């Protein structure tokens, strides 16, 4: 049975890779199987994780028992979860003609809550920590840092400041302000260049993983 699974996996892997040549029936078959199975898989996962695991168990919690299986106490139900369930059911209102607009309520709830929750998180991580991390000494008599550290600190402070200038939308990028913004975009691009190389290497490891599967698990050429 395991051999059959390996053969199917190899067949579908090659089907997906065949897209490199051009769109073809083999790719279409692999794509359809991939999409269909994954959609079904996620339906099951989300059902058991959310509807059963979070909602049902949360509202109707099982009794607490000790290691010997003796009753200890009743579980504490979390009735607030019913609010989420009601909002979820309201999403289905769009299937009913005439009251489809009710489905906008849960959407508005999600979008509003998300904005509010993330506001402070982003504020904290993107502004507060960034500012705090950039307040560092550039140089100094009693500082005792090496030349490389001093250059590094200047790059951090200068790069952050110039980057902020680039993302300032209320002023045209002209004159000294424009020059600083240009420095900012250069810093950003150099960072992206380094990130590109780093990420490409991690993608190579994904490719190696698949080749390892084909030549190892499937063909047995790699021991």
């Amino acid at each position, binding site marked *: 049975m395991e051999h059959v699974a390996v053969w199917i996996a190899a067949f579908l892997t090659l089907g997906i890779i065949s*897209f490199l040549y051009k*769109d073809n029936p083999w*790719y279409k078959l*692999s*794509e359809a199987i*991939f*999409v269909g199975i*994954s*959609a079904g*898989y*996620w339906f099951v996962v989300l059902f058991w994780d959310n509807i059963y695991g979070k909602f049902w168990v949360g509202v109707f919690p099982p009794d607490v028992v000790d290691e010997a299986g003796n009753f200890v106490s009743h579980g*504490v139900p979390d*009735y*607030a979860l019913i*609010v989420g369930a009601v909002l979820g059911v309201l*999403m289905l209102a769009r299937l009913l003609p005439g009251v489809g607009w*009710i489905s*906008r*309520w849960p*959407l508005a709830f*999600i*979008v509003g809550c*998300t*904005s509010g929750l*993330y506001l*402070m998180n*982003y504020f*904290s991580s993107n*502004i*507060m920590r*960034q*500012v705090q991390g*950039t*307040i*560092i*000494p550039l*140089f*100094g008599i*009693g*500082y005792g840092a090496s030349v490389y550290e001093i250059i590094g600190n200047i790059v951090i*402070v200068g790069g952050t*400041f110039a980057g*902020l*200038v680039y*993302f*300032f*939308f*209320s*002023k*045209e*990028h002209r004159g000294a302000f424009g020059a600083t913004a240009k420095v900012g975009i250069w810093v*950003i*691009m150099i*960072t*992206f*260049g380094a*990130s*590109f190389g780093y*990420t490409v290497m991690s993608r190579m490891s*994904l490719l190696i993983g698949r080749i390892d599967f084909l030549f190892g698990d499937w063909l047995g050429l790699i021991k």
Partner: protein
Amino acid sequence: MRLLIHTTLFLSVFIFIGSSRIFSVEPSPQVQADTLVNTADTVGVSVAPVTSLLVDDYKYDNGEQLNLSWVPSIDDQLIDGKVSVYRVYRITNDSTRELIAELPPGSNSFTDKNLNRHDTYRYIVAAVSASDDEVLSTTTEPVQPQREWINFRRGYLFLLALIIGGAVIYYIQSARRGKKLFVRKIAGLEAVDEAIGRATEMGRPILYIPGILDMDDVQTLAAITILGRVAHQIADYDTKIRMPVSRSLVMTAARETIKTAYQTAGRPDQYSDDMVSYVTDEQFGYVAAVDGIMVREKPATVFLLGAFFAESLILAETGNSIGAIQIAGTARPAQLPFFIAACDFTLIGEELFAASAYLSGEPKALGSLKGQDVGKAIAMIVILVGVIAVTIGNAWDVKFMNDVKDMLTTIFSTQ
């Protein structure tokens, strides 16, 4: 009728939330508990026990932490200390005790984390000699972690949010009064009209990919906001839009957005639910399907706006291979290089969020953008002042400068 249903729904949700709070009243806070040295339970006496063990609630958290403090063993305070380690034991509800931490000599406090606010906890701290003899303190009284609704440690964060929020409101009101708010040009957005026009001329569809995260991601929200403007123009030009998505909620939000755009453009009859289709939540399953759509339908324009991960380059390269104009944007730094390499225009980070304001020109969106610029201006000024203060303070030990640095560090602390 609709207003009545709205009001009833709103009141039901409100009353339900209120009642759930009433019915789940927390037990009253436990009094701090301490231990007595004289009653210490000892096993093989070799070192003195810790004294004055206190446990109290960690303030301003979600009811997940408790603070322990104690006076170290007298044998730990001598120069030739005999204590090799302190062991902290936790007793949850009425279960057996569990070792949760081993702390080095000299320790006099510990914060127990990841607790459940519905449980009660008791603690014992053991002083351990070099020969591994434990001397236990008495067990503390049971204490329950408490949840606080407001985190007063983040007072400065709140103040800064108020300043920026105030600036947003001020600019929104200014825009509503008719004041013209300037926003500099964003290259990627200048190309939106051109890209939609090109698709219209070629008679090919426009493909819109809103990333692979759900509606609880701010990048997806930005993508859906931009979609409103793009869809309006598509409706105007009577072009086709194709939008495969990987999340059901995004599908619903996108359909609503496009439908509204078509209604606003005066072409509600042209709208169809088929414009937006759910594919799968699976990342690479979604990518396989989108790649297939790209090569089969050959869209003239591809929008890749939202949160992307490993699929960014695969999608952008496929779009590039079919000769589509590609406008991409994400706030994920690791994916931006790929978009910059493979797409015609890229909205970098914040530009994605500024895009909706820039495109719509609505007072609310513009005011929000200008308010954020106030935040950036504050950050730039603080960085400048802070760096000067810390550099001079370090170099010449100037007290005033050190005070300025300390003040800024305190204000911008996130603890």
